[in-house]
């Protein structure tokens, strides 16, 4: 499978009358996009805005972040199985508006969180302060069920990314990155002496606001599935997960999965990268046991020497992570875990309550309870009232001047468990 990602560097973003990229400036046809999104009768209103790195702007509550892209060759444009007809992802050519992002905003339920600060202290904690963001705030018609509401917002974000992405159709990319890998047999024949490494990517798949989709299939219903890494890098995986702000994998992070990129970089040099197993995280223990057995079985069938396991979320998925780790290590397959931790506000607690001796190699994305102080913004995109929710119901969290104290768990992408960000914890 061969995928060429053409990066068109975006240096600015503005709303206008047409959708285009000129000299790195992305212009979005405001009315055109609103009209396009309103084709969905469930949408009452759409409000578009832009947020640029360095501006004193706060976006809240963020639902998802999506990279705008356009398919140039092979497959279908958009998100196959969702916004377009089923097609094979991961082949051909795709242009991306590199440095731009569509950020969907809006409440499905009242306790939603997820903040992106574009400047200062808050900007350090989220990777999405460095992207030029087109914010899409969706309000829906009355009487929608929560499921329909969530779906409306999710699809609107994807459609917006598709609409904006078209601007890159006829633009020559600034940089082209090729992701190419033959069959497992071919690659193993090429690199017979390199250790075979799998990537097991855990996904939250537990119901409303806690879902992930592959080609539009709700991953709650699947057994762990083998994906070619190119498929995920090419729009096959979508986030429907809007409550684990700090450690969820947004659609953008699926499209640019950092573990896949960094494993790819070593493919043929230090390792033989076999592919990705998409691992659903179930609510039931039976589901967790089944999934961990299944991952081990796939790893064995593929002859893996090592598995990189990344978690999504916090709480019950910790059990899945350690189950997979234990089973693999006992079977002689090396594991490398990526997770985040709760060491308490003061950092004095033991990070993992459930410990496993087998978990010897762990990367930490940081302490989800670390408190950050965010100064007041000049402008708030989204729902200013959500800030009180985000502060999280403890004294002194929201000061009168608008200064906000919150735990990292409210900041989008801050403690990424696919290692997308550069935060960690160290013993002091």
């Amino acid at each position: 499978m061969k995928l060429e990602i053409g990066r068109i560097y975006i240096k600015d973003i503005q709303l206008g009358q047409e959708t285009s990229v000129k000299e790195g400036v992305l212009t979005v046809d405001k009315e055109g996009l609103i009209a396009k999104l309103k084709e969905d009768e469930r949408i009452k209103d759409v409000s578009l805005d832009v947020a640029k790195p360095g501006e004193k702007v706060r976006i809240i509550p963020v639902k998802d972040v999506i990279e705008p892209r356009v398919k140039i060759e092979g497959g279908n444009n958009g998100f196959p199985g969702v916004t377009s007809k089923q097609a094979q992802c991961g082949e051909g050519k795709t242009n991306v508006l590199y440095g731009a992002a569509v950020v969907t905003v809006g409440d499905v339920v009242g306790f939603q969180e997820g903040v992106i600060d574009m400047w200062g202290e808050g900007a350090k904690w989220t990777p999405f302060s460095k992207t030029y963001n087109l914010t899409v705030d969706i309000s829906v018609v009355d009487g929608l069920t929560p499921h329909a509401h969530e779906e409306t917002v999710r699809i609107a974000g994807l459609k917006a990314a598709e609409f904006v992405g078209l601007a890159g159709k006829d633009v020559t990319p600034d940089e082209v990155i090729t992701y190419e890998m033959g069959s497992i047999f071919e690659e193993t024949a090429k690199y017979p002496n390199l250790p075979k490494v799998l990537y097991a990517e855990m996904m939250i798949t537990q119901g409303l606001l806690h879902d992930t989709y592959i080609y539009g299939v709700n991953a709650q219903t699947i057994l762990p599935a083998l994906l070619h890494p190119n498929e995920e890098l090419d729009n096959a995986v979508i986030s429907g997960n809007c409550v684990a702000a700090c450690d969820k994998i947004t659609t953008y992070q699926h499209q640019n999965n950092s573990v896949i990129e960094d494993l790819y970089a070593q493919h043929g040099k230090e390792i033989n990268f076999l592919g990705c197993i998409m691992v659903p995280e179930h609510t039931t223990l039976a589901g967790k046991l089944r999934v961990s057995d299944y991952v081990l079985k796939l790893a064995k069938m593929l002859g893996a020497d090592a598995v990189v396991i990344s978690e999504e979320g916090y709480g019950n998925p910790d059990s899945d992570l350690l189950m997979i780790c234990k089973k693999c290590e006992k079977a002689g397959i090396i594991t490398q875990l990526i997770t985040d931790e709760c060491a308490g506000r003061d950092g004095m607690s033991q990070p993992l309550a459930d410990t496993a001796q087998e978990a010897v190699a762990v990367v930490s994305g940081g302490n989800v309870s670390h408190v950050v102080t965010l100064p007041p913004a000049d402008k708030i995109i989204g729902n200013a009232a959500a800030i009180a929710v985000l502060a999280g119901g403890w004294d002194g969290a929201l000061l009168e001047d608008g200064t906000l104290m919150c735990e990292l768990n409210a900041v989008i992408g801050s403690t990424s468990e696919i290692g997308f960000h550069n935060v960690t914890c160290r013993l002091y």
Partner: protein
Amino acid sequence: MKSIIITNNPAVREKYRNVLFIDGSVEDTLIKVRDMVYQGYELVSHPLAASIRMMYSPYRSVILGRQEAKVDFLYAEIIEDSIIKYKRHTSHRKKDVTNSDDYQMIDLILLEAALSEQQITW
């Protein structure tokens, strides 16, 4: 289905029959689950949700299965760890009452997702 739902969520009590309703906090609910696990009940669903935000929910529902003669130590370990984690996240927070209805609804929806998994073997 031979399961019992241990819950402090009124919306769950209204909708299901096989409910042991706890008139109390999430912590009370988890402690009841722990006690029952030590009496041999099978832990069908994990006591915690998958996101920190749901850790702040004032409602929680956990599914237990049959009572066996022997305590399953995997279940015991999971419920003990869950209580520790739960306390760590919530000890310094106030209950979010303004969004009670939404929390009830999401807890119910997540419970139903769990109930729809593998009903027959329970």
